[in-house]
């Protein structure tokens, strides 16, 4: 029964390849997008760290985004 399911009456190669290629490329694309996002978050966090204390306080007060990234970056470190 499992072999019948895998072979799909002779169409298995085409069906599994279609689903396999779709799942594989989507997974790789997801990982690449996630990696780029993390890289940008890390670079932004490092840039925030280079600011003087006053500048940093001002930026964190004005921007929730900077605050979120700074908090996440601190937690990760």
């Amino acid at each position: 029964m499992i072999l019948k399911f895998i072979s799909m009456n002779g169409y298995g190669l085409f069906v599994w390849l279609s689903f396999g290629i779709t799942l594989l490329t989507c997974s790789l694309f997801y990982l690449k997008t996630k990696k780029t996002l993390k890289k940008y978050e890390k670079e932004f966090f490092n840039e925030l760290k280079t600011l003087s204390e006053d500048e940093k306080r001002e930026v964190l007060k004005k921007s929730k985004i900077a605050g979120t990234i700074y908090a996440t970056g601190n937690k990760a470190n």
Partner: protein
Amino acid sequence: MFKFLYSSNIYLLIENIIKFINSIFFIILLIGLTFALVLSPPDYIQGESVRIMYVHVPSAWIGLACFASITLFSILNFIFKIKFFFSINKSLSPIGLLFTCLAIITGSLWGQPTWGTWWAWDARLTSMVVLMFIYIAYILSFKLIKEEQTAIKISSLIAIIGSINLPIIKYSVIWWNTLHQPASISIGRENSIHTSMMLPLMLMLLVLLLYCALIFLMKYKTEIIRIKRKNIKRL
């Protein structure tokens, strides 16, 4: 007027939506795959190869829908001169390219058992390849041109001119005598597809749309960070 698109609230909302999609995605993927690969019946002519439709058709729809959205945002960008639409397009275009390529590849894999050939220079297939090249040109335009305003103008022009290809893709199976079958599903007309196949198709469409939403939001988030980083001292 559109500043809210880059605001902190949108950023936090995006984070929450990403978490929500991540939490439900695998369950919906499993249900979709079970219906597509196990529960749906084989076709009376094409047999089991019809299952390729569950990835091929949604991929083609998404490829076309992404380009239609890019065109719309490019026109809005020309009229209102609002940069945010360009950020949305930058996030949408790689998704569109990915699904256009997937539609071509899975179509080829479906073509071999049903038509007896991997490829034919048929109107539908050729117009999809043209769409893929337009996507590549669009992406290259903002990757290669460093000056942002020029990149926005050129990429918008590519999108608007490239949109001529969309009705060609849609009506190619009617205008020309093609190997590709006419549409089985259309809005406002009775569908020629049975519910037992329609359900897995809609489920797989939902899975791929959720995936697109996830990628789009992650890319848009990256864009927001990139812009905030550029203006860090002015925040």
